[in-house]
């Protein structure tokens, strides 16, 4: 029998299957949304929540996530027994779960809350436990990016597997057992004192409010309401293709003009685009790379745009630090450039410049707070908002996002090329650098770069890039997900591979999949990426050198200060 002929019988209906690894995928393909709290197709199967149970023809209860489909298998998904068990399991969850829903950051986006509503849990039958009412565990607020509230944890282990399997960081794991089981760093240390790299993917997969992203919205409001402050915003590339989802706009749509409009209404004084400094990064990083290539310095050169990746190298591979590009990330370049610019331009208005960045990222919050990023006694970036944080401000202001009139960014730092824009997706930095390295800058040639192998949502992409001199062939790797980066590092250590240039983004899929984005599944990430590439095609300039503001900048603010403002030496 060929694979195409295989089928299962689900609730009496024949459902064909071929490559599906488990019954759950087949059931979902058949249009039935089996509930889960601990299942992500990207992570290993854990099987702890028991919500995806189905009943087979012999009356056995099996978990759909962990059982492979078999040809001819008959299952039911909604029998009276299953209903009873699912409800009882939810009641057991709720019996010990914190009940401060209205003040929880995940109120209305909590998966447990969602299932309780879906299954009509009207009373907590097993209300025998006092755990629900007392905050047994201390909230861990030590990290600049992530808040852990173990009182809201349902021990699904999603964060643990994300941190260990996908990211190879291992900052958190289970401790104790049974009813006392909890997720925490080793020896229950504060998260800030662990190897956590602040990628925030734990929060991205947490079904409840046990791991959340630090909320910096109040400090932004405070700055906006302060007349003595000029609040200057930068918006990262990946934000524009994700924010719309929050307001019912189709997934992946580029809503930058609406974001600008909303932010003006909120009261930001100047609104710019981080893609501008991404262009600067392309120029600086390409020069650094070509310089190293020419001088025979140790390669590969690793990209440095992703602060979680930089932290990862500091924690796990300090020996590789000299090979990480000295370029500041676009966020930090923006901060130092804009502050230097403001100093000259607004010398006498007596207002202090506050740089707020809107990022898809949580590690950016930690990055902005690093001691290396203080220029002339002032932080390059003062406050970092996530995409979700900006959405919260729009909600709070009562702005009807969908009905806004589109508006344009401020100049000069609202000018950017497509090369800077594609930083928001895995492979983007690489593609931007290639566009710069290429001597043939014709339209056709730039368009062709997309076939080089840098695009796509795969975790590891490796390809050869023949240079136009006809001699050099560059070996390039593009990685997203820190676990994938680790794989590559081990391959290099074992002498099994060599690369000239490696782009690393900590979040799977790159910044479009950042933990600061509205909660998104894999499919959403892909749509966001496609949208970024589509917008890139529509930009006036396709490679960084074309950005008309940049030459001027090198002659003014950056004159003699290129290194100072655009580069960094980490000293952890």
């Amino acid at each position: 029998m060929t694979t195409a002929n295989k089928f299962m019988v689900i609730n009496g209906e024949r459902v064909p299957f071929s490559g599906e690894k488990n019954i759950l995928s087949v059931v979902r393909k058949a249009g039935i949304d089996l509930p889960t709290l601990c299942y992500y197709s990207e992570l290993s199967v854990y099987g702890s929540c028991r919500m995806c149970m189905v009943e087979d023809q012999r009356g056995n209860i099996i978990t759909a996530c962990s059982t492979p489909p078999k040809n001819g298998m008959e299952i039911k998904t909604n029998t009276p027994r299953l209903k009873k068990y699912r409800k009882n399991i939810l009641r057991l969850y709720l019996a010990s779960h914190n009940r401060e829903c209205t003040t929880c950051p995940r109120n209305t986006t909590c998966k447990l809350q969602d299932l309780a509503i879906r299954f009509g849990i009207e009373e907590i039958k097993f209300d025998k436990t006092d755990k629900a009412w007392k905050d047994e565990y201390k909230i861990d607020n030590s990290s600049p990016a992530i808040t852990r509230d173990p009182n809201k944890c349902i021990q699904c282990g999603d964060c643990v597997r994300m941190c260990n399997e996908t990211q190879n960081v291992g900052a958190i794991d289970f401790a104790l057992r049974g009813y006392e089981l909890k997720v925490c760093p080793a020896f229950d240390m504060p998260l800030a004192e662990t190897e956590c790299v602040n990628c925030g993917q734990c929060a991205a997969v947490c079904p409840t409010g046990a791991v959340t992203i630090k909320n910096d919205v109040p400090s932004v409001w405070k700055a906006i309401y302060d007349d003595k402050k000029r609040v200057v915003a930068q918006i990262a590339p990946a934000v524009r293709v994700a924010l719309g989802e929050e307001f019912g706009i189709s997934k992946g749509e580029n809503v930058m003009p609406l974001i600008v409009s909303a932010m003006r209404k909120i009261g930001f004084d100047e609104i710019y685009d981080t893609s501008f400094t991404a262009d600067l990064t392309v120029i600086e990083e390409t020069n650094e790379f070509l310089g190293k290539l020419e001088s025979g310095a140790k390669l590969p050169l690793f990209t440095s745009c992703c602060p979680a990746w930089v932290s990862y190298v500091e924690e796990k591979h300090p020996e590789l630090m000299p090979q990480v590009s000295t370029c500041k990330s676009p966020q930090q370049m923006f901060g130092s450039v804009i502050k230097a610019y403001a100093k000259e331009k607004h010398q006498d208005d007596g207002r202090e410049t506050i740089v707020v960045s809107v990022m898809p990222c949580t590690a950016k919050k930690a990055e902005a707070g690093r001691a290396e990023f203080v220029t002339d006694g002032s932080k390059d970036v003062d406050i970092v908002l996530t995409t979700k944080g900006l959405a919260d401000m729009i909600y709070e202001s009562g702005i009807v996002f969908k009905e806004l009139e589109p508006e344009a960014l401020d100049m000069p730092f609202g000018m950017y090329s497509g090369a800077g824009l594609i930083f928001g997706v895995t492979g983007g930095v690489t593609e931007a650098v290639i566009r710069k390295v290429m001597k043939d800058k014709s339209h056709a040639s730039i368009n062709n770069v997309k076939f080089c192998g840098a695009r796509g949502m795969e975790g590891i992409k490796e390809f050869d890039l023949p240079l136009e001199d006809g001699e050099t062939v560059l070996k390039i790797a593009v990685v997203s997900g820190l676990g994938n980066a680790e794989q590559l590092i081990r391959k290099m250590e074992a002498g099994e591979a060599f690369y000239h240039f490696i782009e690393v983004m900590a979040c799977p899929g790159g910044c479009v999949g950042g933990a600061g984005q509205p909660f998104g599944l894999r499919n959403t990430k892909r749509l966001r990426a496609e949208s970024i590439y589509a917008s890139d095609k529509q930009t006036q300039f396709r490679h960084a050198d074309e950005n008309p503001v940049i030459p001027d900048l090198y002659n003014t603010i950056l004159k003699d200060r290129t290194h100072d403002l655009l580069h960094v030496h980490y000293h952890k």
Partner: protein
Amino acid sequence: MKIIVGQGSCGIASGAKKTESKFKQHIEGNHLNADVTIAGCIGSCYLEPIADVIDDNGVHTRYVHLTSDKVERVVREHLLGGKPVEEYLIPESGRLFLEKQTRIALKNCGAINPENINDYIAAGGYQALKKALFEMDGDQICREIEKSGLRGRGGGGFPTGKKWVQVKSQKEPVKYIVCNGDEGDPGAFMDRSVMEGDPHKMLEGMIIAGIATGAQTGYIYVRAEYPLAVHRLQVAIAQAEEAGYLGENILGSSFNFSIRINLGAGAFVCGEGSALTASIEGNRGMPRVKPPRTVEQGLFGKPTVLNNVETFAHVSYIILNGAEGYRKIGIEKSPGTKAFALTGNVNNTGLIEVPMGTTLRTVIFEIGGGVRNGKSFKAVQIGGPSGGCLTEKHLDMSLDFDSLTKAGAMIGSGGLVVMDEDTCMVGIAKFFMNFTEHESCGKCVPCREGTHVMNEILDDIVNGRGSIDQIDMLLDLADTITNTALCGLGKTAASPVVSTIREFKSEYEAHVIDKYCPTGSCQGLKRIVIDAAQCKGCSKCQTVCPVNAISGERKKPYLINLATCIKCKRCIDSCPFKAIVEN
């Protein structure tokens, strides 16, 4: 002349080491020509310390309760005088206890020195290994084990031969043999006795499993709470390596097999296959979802035979006597013997081994000598926290895998806790539920939260806070846990509650409706009160109360604060006017 002092953990706990050194001292002092040696536990734990005297004519005399103070007399009257000390001899019941048994796994326990490989070889040890190595191939061994009908003695009763065949058929070249010695059931100690009393038998079984399946490495997972077992296994492995039964080119053949010991930290859940292998790998001991099964991807992701100690101890017998010879013992669907740890309110406690199919009545009344102190039999908890309780009406039921499962209990690892008329069945259910809650790994919700809630409900019931609808709630939760928990231990976690409600519902009802414990054993349902009419206000009770639960003014009746009172009854004893009563 030879003197064997039983030195299982039970013997040592009763003072066998002192007995041994006293013997040595007196033998040396009297310049006697006698060897003093040790053996594992013979099973009659209630008679320890036990010492056997074998005189030069081979006459075997067994002394029981032979504490060190009695040794001098034995040496004087028996060793020197040639006349056994009648007073210390094993009683008739003790002899029956042993005679009524059929021993395969425990055959050498208590008879040979577990720290001397030559004793094991003299008792026919490693003959099966030779046969398996030179007269059989892997397929033949697997077939023999399959034909024998041997089922895993760890609880599940899965056919051992089938497991071996499945591992053998895996293409992966690296395979493992894992021996589960993580005996965690309260009241079970058969695996410990085998490891302490006859470690080579288990090693031999593991090596044969290696030949059968093509594995070259074995792991023994023993709980660290079994230091004596660990020590004897270490000694046995070293001696077997020295003698060429383990290591490279075993007995000159091309077969290599090595065995490592892995200490477990004593988590009950690590007795579950996938949690055990995770623990050996250095990971958190938590069961994982299956498939893949252990036979496909077990230890380090490789095909793995995982059997418990007792199962491996049956292998050499099957190889030597053939499947047919083995099938002569026991019954059709459960051939062979099974070891049980007989404990609780029974006269003869200890370790026994009987053919499958033996009745409970034989075990409790003939071998166990009946219920202690002339009390009447109420129930027996079989299979530990995963099992269930059986009553009077089950006494003539056959003890085997299938009958027990049908009766709502299970063989489990073979704990048999006998309970008399004074045992509160709600209390028993609470005891096991407390155990299960504390030993739950916490991975899946039904087990983690469900056992906690059930334990809380039971706590209410035994403390007089229960209500009638809580009994249904217990059954409702039990049904959910049984059908939805991730691992076998979770699925059976509610069994003691379900079976006690089934057999003793009226007892539960008395607790929740009348707030009365029919056996009077639930402390929480007792009230200690001062009869105001009798109390003279002398304050003596107040002085002795350890928790300051009694207050009052002198010469006026005192009062007990029931919320603070721990029912220690010191006040009752102290009252000169008998004014304090328990009701």
